[in-house]
């Protein structure tokens, strides 16, 4: 258990006083001056390391201590090398220190010194020098050193490749190309001596070295690879492992070598000529007399090739052999896992080789195709098939291969059956992200199977939501926009269904133990099967949504508090925004009209998760405004449904946000200036609808269970009525009458439909101002129907709030004028319109 003791250790280390620290430094320095270093030294070094790493601020060690630690780097005791390297890495180097170790450039750098040099490298030159030194010691090493004195060479080179490939000189590169060929292709095929203890096997009868074996125990018939085993390993066999481990990175780094494209092409032509020539003069000198596998027999004599091309050829052979070896049944799980890893790596390397030199495609493809055939029916190899998919994507066209069965597997089967494999999910989505353009162009299965892909998101939303943010825009087309919108809204339901599906597979069929979840019973009930199957469908195109969606939502209502479902619901709003951002770029007006209808329809058909409905309504509201602003005539197109929505009084209470915005768009855009089809009859009809609702909600208490209608609903209704009236002046008296009644009612003090006094005052004030404005219809018409560029308010985003402010300003102007006029003519009662 992580105790307070551990935490206090760290605190102590962090808060050590300077004086105590200095004492500690000198004690440690003294310890290091002694020849032998025992437990006390080791413990003190560990403590120093903890002190240094416990704080973010970097310390400088006293020079004497620093010097001692530097000399420890070459201690024969590895633990001391490790500790001194770790400590020095946490401190600031003294200037000129870089020259102090590794001074003797002929000496071998151990791994931990190399790590220190790497961490302190400040320039390309530093890395170059390190690289050169390492490679030099590789060449002129003595054979007495154990393998582990050299084992870090390639990993360090790999690091330098990552950070600064330019640090490698041409010489280095050529040397490494040659050495890699030797290690990969020509390592010993006999077993090394027993392990690190050295010496021969005791009790071994013969001194004849045994041949290496395959993972299934049979004797190897070909060159050594990482999938070969022996009792012990020789040095070059170890280097074979290190070489293969960095091979892909090596090939990738020098893939696009800036060396003159023309020269390269000429070289390639020359090479392919010489290759085909040497194929017929097959020189078997490389092949020893023993059993030869397919690979070696068909290998071309590549001695004519320059080092880089030779390495490519050997890499190809190595990977082919690995793929063959993976067909064998390994005896241990760690080896089975390794085989899968090797398959992935081999296919990636082959892909790389083919990208560098397209003439390889014809030799490589049969091998990859055969591999696909072998693995496609085994889902445990799904992750291996992703690099195969990459290969097909890159080279399939060139090889004129039918890739359909591969893509069907990747998009139709994998997500459906492996949605809960986090590694597959990550890798498949990553594959899509990295190849998005290509996949969109050439793989129709991608978009066709979007319902399937969403299963990854529905299952483990937090882990993959970022991927979907990147991928979603590419999924939206004019053909699938509506179905996609429904799918996004149903993601929490999909999440619940996947949980039920998995649980259902684990539970026995007749689980009547009384713990039966209603949702599980529903899931297993044949009469509801079709509903769940729709959610679980793998392909789009069979319908936007289902008729009995309401039923499905009821059946799943108890799942609304399942953590997985809740997490999924939290991702929906942002995906909706992305959807809308994309859909306006691909949809025509007709489709956008249908999108509006879906929004209205679905606003009451959502899984009842707390906050989910509110959030979705908020998105809908914003997007409704946006769509109508973009295409105001949409309001006329969809006027029937919008009026139906606006006329349903319950919507005021259950969907106040959307309701407010529906009323807003009606008020703003139902006008002949936006669409000549807007008739007087339509305006009147709309007016009457809104008037009826406003009357209903302001003449009585809210229905039981519902709170008072939001003040914004009322003000938006009032504003809309005024706007409509300003376009059809016959309606003005009706508005005025209503508004004056409203004012009278509120004079009595409280009203049942508004429980906040200030809100009531604002509502009534608005009413009065609009009334006043409508007295001059001409003015009202311009104020309430400003040309589009004016409706983008300067000081408020919310047009509903901006309007009263505009009115207030106007009112004061008109009042000033009125009272001036009145004072000249009538000396009586104060105008009802003077401000309080």
């Amino acid at each position, binding site marked *: 258990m992580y105790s307070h003791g551990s935490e206090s250790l760290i605190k102590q280390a962090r808060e050590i006083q300077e004086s105590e620290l200095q004492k500690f430094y000198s004690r440690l320095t003294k310890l290091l001056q002694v020849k032998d270093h025992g437990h006390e030294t080791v413990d003190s070094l560990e403590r120093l390391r903890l002190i240094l790493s416990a704080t973010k601020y970097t310390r400088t060690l006293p020079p004497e201590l620093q010097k001692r630690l530097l000399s420890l780097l070459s201690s024969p005791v590895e633990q001391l090398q490790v500790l001194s390297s770790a400590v020095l890495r946490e401190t600031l180097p003294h200037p000129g220190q870089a020259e102090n170790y590794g001074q003797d450039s002929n000496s071998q750098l151990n791994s931990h010194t190399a790590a220190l040099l790497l961490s302190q490298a400040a320039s390309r030159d530093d890395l170059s020098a390190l690289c050169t030194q390492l490679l030099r010691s590789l060449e002129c090493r003595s054979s007495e050193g154990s393998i582990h004195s050299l084992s870090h060479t390639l990993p360090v080179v790999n690091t330098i490749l990552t950070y*600064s490939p330019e640090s490698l000189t041409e010489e280095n590169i050529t040397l490494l190309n040659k050495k890699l060929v030797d290690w990969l292709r020509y390592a010993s095929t006999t077993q090394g001596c027993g*392990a690190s203890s050295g010496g021969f096997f005791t009790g071994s009868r013969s001194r004849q070295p045994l041949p290496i074996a395959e993972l299934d125990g049979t004797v190897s018939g070909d060159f050594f690879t990482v999938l070969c085993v022996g009792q012990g390993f020789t040095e070059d066999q170890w280097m074979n492992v290190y070489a293969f481990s960095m091979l892909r990175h090596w090939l990738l780094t020098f893939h696009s070598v800036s060396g003159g494209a023309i020269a390269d092409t000429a070289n390639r032509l020359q090479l392919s000529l010489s290759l085909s020539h040497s194929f017929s003069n097959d020189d078997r000198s490389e092949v020893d007399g023993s059993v030869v596998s397919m690979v070696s027999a068909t290998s071309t004599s590549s001695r004519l090739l320059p080092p880089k091309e030779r390495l490519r050829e050997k890499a190809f052979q190595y990977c082919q052999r690995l793929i063959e070896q993976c067909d064998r049944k390994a005896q241990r799980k760690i080896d089975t896992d390794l085989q899968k890893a090797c398959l992935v790596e081999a296919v990636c390397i082959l892909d790389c080789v083919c990208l560098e030199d397209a003439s390889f495609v014809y030799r490589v493809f049969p091998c990859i195709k055969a591999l696909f055939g072998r693995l496609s029916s085994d889902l445990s190899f799904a992750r291996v098939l992703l690099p195969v998919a990459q290969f097909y994507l890159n080279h399939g066209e060139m090889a004129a291969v039918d890739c359909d069965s591969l893509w069907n597997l990747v998009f139709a089967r994998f997500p459906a059956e492996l949605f809960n494999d986090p590694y597959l999910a990550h890798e498949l989505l990553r594959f899509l992200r990295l190849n998005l353009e290509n996949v969109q162009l050439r793989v129709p299965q991608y978009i066709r199977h979007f319902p399937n892909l969403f299963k990854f998101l529905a299952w483990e939303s937090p882990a993959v939501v970022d991927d979907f943010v990147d991928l979603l825009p590419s999924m939206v087309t004019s053909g699938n926009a509506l179905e996609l919108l429904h799918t996004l809204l149903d993601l929490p339901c999909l999440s619940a269904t996947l949980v039920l599906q998995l649980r259902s597979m684990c539970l026995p069929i007749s689980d009547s133990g009384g713990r039966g979840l209603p949702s599980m019973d529903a899931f297993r009930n044949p009469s509801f099967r079709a509903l769940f199957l729709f959610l679980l469908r793998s392909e789009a195109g069979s319908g936007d949504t289902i008729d009995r969606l309401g039923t499905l939502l009821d059946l799943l209502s108890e799942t609304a508090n399942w953590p*997985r479902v809740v*997490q999924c619901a939290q991702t929906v709003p942002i995906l909706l925004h992305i959807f809308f951002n994309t859909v306006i770029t691909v949809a025509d007006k007709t489709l956008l009209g249908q999108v509006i209808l879906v929004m209205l329809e679905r606003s009451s058909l959502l899984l009842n998760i707390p906050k989910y409905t509110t959030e979705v309504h908020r998105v809908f509201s914003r997007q409704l405004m946006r769509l109508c602003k973009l295409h105001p005539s949409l309001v006329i197109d969809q006027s029937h449904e919008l009026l139906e929505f606006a006329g349903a009084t319950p919507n005021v209470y259950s969907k106040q946000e959307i309701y407010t915005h529906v009323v807003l768009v009606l008020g703003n855009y139902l006008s002949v200036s936006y669409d000549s089809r807007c008739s007087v009859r339509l305006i009147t009809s709309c007016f009457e609808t809104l008037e009826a609702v406003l009357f209903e909600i302001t003449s009585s208490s809210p229905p039981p269970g519902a709170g008072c209608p939001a003040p914004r609903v009322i003000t938006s209704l009032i504003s809309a009525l005024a706007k409509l009236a300003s376009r059809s002046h016959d309606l003005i008296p009706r508005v005025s009458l209503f508004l004056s009644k409203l004012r009278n009612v509120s004079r009595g003090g409280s009203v049942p439909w508004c429980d906040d006094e200030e809100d009531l005052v604002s509502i009534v004030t608005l009413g009065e101002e609009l009334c006043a404005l409508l007295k001059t219809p001409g003015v009202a018409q311009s104020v309430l129907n400003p040309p589009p560029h004016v409706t983008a308010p300067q000081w408020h985003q919310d047009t509903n709030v901006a309007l009263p402010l505009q009115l207030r300003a106007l009112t004061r102007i008109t009042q000033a004028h009125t009272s001036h006029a009145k004072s000249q003519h009538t000396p009586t009662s104060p105008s009802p319109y003077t401000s309080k």
Partner: protein
Amino acid sequence: MVLAFVIHTVCPIGALSSGECRVLYSRVFGADEALFRGEQQQQQQRLDAGERRLLAAEKIAVVARQVQSAVSLRREASGRPPGETPPGEEALALQEADGGVLRLRDGDPFWREVLLKGSRVDVLLSRLLPHGQLLFLNHRFAQSLEKDVAANVNK
């Protein structure tokens, strides 16, 4: 290559305040990223060695916190309550530990040992993940390396 190896807490710990994450061991492999990565070279070179180390430590801390929240979300979704392992049950907790991906690896911590014997982790890493290089090791190679680690750590 692997860029960093970090051991840190992943569940709410009594000794820590809520949401806090303690990094117990961290090892960044290779050269200083800030110095050698392309466009930002100009800007970063103005930071001195101490500042670069600070930057690296901050990044590790951020990553650790991200992993911690990913782990707790995952556990929440699968219905397992996040909580400390009672003493004595560490081995079991390690076996049941989930692996996962968030472009990082989840892990499980093993407390005091790590704080006071960081050199063991270093030696282990130097064999199994030398300078961040992932190795293709069959069981024989792996055994050989493990023996080597054991030999060097217990001196």
